[in-house]
């Protein structure tokens, strides 16, 4: 190796101060890229697993073979790579189908929340006045519930089912979208292109849809990624508590609840579904973090994605 040149030495010495922004940026950039690749890789894999579940799963996730119950994993030998549960169902197959359920629920919830939140936020910010007051009071009241508690209350009072689970998961999840969209709309409506549109005779509805909404999408996308992670965790939590989807549908949360019951004898029942949730959420968080850094670093301080 050649000895370092005076120039590189001075950069090395100057590093504790902000003297080498280019080097800093390069390292930061590399980390960002790693985060993005890892996150996108995990999420991509998950989507493929979810779509191709019937091809990938070695067994029917519902098939019960009671003689084959609580079999330990045969990682390399098979036939049940991750073992079987207390009803003799293959855990690997159930995890693969569980990915499908988790993803469908989470994506639906995030889209519905996004539409409601961004819509209300734009309307609230654009019209102001009593419309704004009413919507913001609603936000304040719904947000005053500890997260998940409102969802639990909704399911407790309205009963269980896929539709009610969705309502419960959306109940608070639209709020971050609404708050950020409202704030952005407040400044957007003062911009020249909005004034120009109005001068040309555009109605309020058209201005909101054609001129305001497109500008809100970028932040909504970042919020949506984090909302997706929290939706998966919430759905799993509710299923774990026995408040989720009907028991015949395989979900990671309800598998984990079964695992807890059999924890003293069969560790694999609890390990694999939990690991699946963890890796999924980790992947989505990594992707969301990278997206936020790339698209809108200002969101960082607002604590988005915290819930």
């Amino acid at each position: 190796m050649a000895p370092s040149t005076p120039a590189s030495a001075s950069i090395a010495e100057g590093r504790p101060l902000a003297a080498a922004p280019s080097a800093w940026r390069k390292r930061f950039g590399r980390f960002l890229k790693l985060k993005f690749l890892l996150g996108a890789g995990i999420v991509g894999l998950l989507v493929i697993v979810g779509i191709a579940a019937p091809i990938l799963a070695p067994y029917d996730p519902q098939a019960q073979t009671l003689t084959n119950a609580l079999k330990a994993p045969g990682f390399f030998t098979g036939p049940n790579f991750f073992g079987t549960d207390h009803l003799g169902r293959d855990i690997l197959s159930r995890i693969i189908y569980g990915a499908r359920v988790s993803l469908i629920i989470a994506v639906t919830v995030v889209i519905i929340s996004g539409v409601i939140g961004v819509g209300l936020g734009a309307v609230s910010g654009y019209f102001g006045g009593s419309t704004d007051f009413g919507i913001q009071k609603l936000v304040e009241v719904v947000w005053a519930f500890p997260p998940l508690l409102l969802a639990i209350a909704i399911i407790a009072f309205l009963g269980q089912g896929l539709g009610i689970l969705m309502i419960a998961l959306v109940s608070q999840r639209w709020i971050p979208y609404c708050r950020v969209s409202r704030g952005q709309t407040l400044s957007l409506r003062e911009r020249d292109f909005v004034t120009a549109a109005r001068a040309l005779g555009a109605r309020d509805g058209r201005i909101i849809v054609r001129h305001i909404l497109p500008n809100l999408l970028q932040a909504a996308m970042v919020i949506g990624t984090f909302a997706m992670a929290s939706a998966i965790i919430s759905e799993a939590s509710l299923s774990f508590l026995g408040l989720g989807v009907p028991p015949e549908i395989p979900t990671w949360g309800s598998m984990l609840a079964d695992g807890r019951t059999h924890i003293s004898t069969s560790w694999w029942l609890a390990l694999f579904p939990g690991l699946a949730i963890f890796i999924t959420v980790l992947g989505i968080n990594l992707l969301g973090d990278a997206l936020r850094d790339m698209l809108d670093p200002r969101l960082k301080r607002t604590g988005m994605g915290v819930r």
Partner: protein
Amino acid sequence: MLGYTVRRILGTIPVMVLISLLVFVLLHSAPGDPAEMLLSDEATPQDIAEAKARWGLDQPIYVQYWRFLSSAIQFDFGESFRYRETVVDLLIQRFPATIELALAAILIAVIIGVPLGVWSGARPNTWVDNVSSVVGFFGISMPSFWMGIMLILIIAGFFNWLPSAGRETFGVPGERITGLYTVDSLIRGDMRAFWDALSYLIMPAVTLGVNMLGILMRVTRSAVLDVMHEDYVTTARAKGLAERVVLWRHTVRNALITIITVVGLELGTLLSGSIIVETVFAWPGIGSMLIAGLNVRDYPLITGLVLAYTAIFVFVNFVIDICYGAIDPRIRFDR
């Protein structure tokens, strides 16, 4: 400051009223007759008619809401039919356990999360920072119920170091003072009871604290990074102050406001997290009681606990707001 406090207290009243309205609407949109729901399954049609008259369920809906609200204000949520006690008594019995768990979780999160965040914020893009970043990501992505089960499996099951469920070994604790067993035993000077209480507390508290730890670490890091570039930090350095002093007195103190905000925001998540963690570890707090009540459709208990949880959350947010002024004298409340 006093004016602000009063205004802020008055401001929470309409929110609490609207919350009670929302819970009331939920309770009334539940399938089935409220009288049938509020009574146990053994109730005869005659009992139901009687209860309807007694609770005023034959009255118009706004009269019913008014009754619901006025009894809620008096903390009267009726009697739980699972536990055969009034909801308020149950709350008082179970509440200290939840508080102890939540405080322990916050303590763990702050003691580990904040220094780790400061450390990595002060040295961005070093190995320390990268390790902390990984810890942060693991923390925010960890499903707490799974982590709890894994801790039970490994630490309680395999190594048998700590007990896996409950709050005390039968017969060990003595007199109750605060209801927080660890604090009580310290006040009594009973070290055996203290270690016993602590051994039950550690795993649930770590489980509950891990998400907050991850978030705190990340937020502290970015808050410190932001403040590091402020002029007063440069000035402090130029004055020749030791780097340690610059970091803790000038940087961290100014990052504190962000940290406190996040702790406040996260308390809500912590409260709902406690519902799950208490269930996993059979911790006798209000969260595990809520889930036990859900399974038998104990509506008076569920209504009371939902309102209680929300009131706690609103109160905590209020306290956090008041705290700002104490930390950062630049914040003035009197407009």
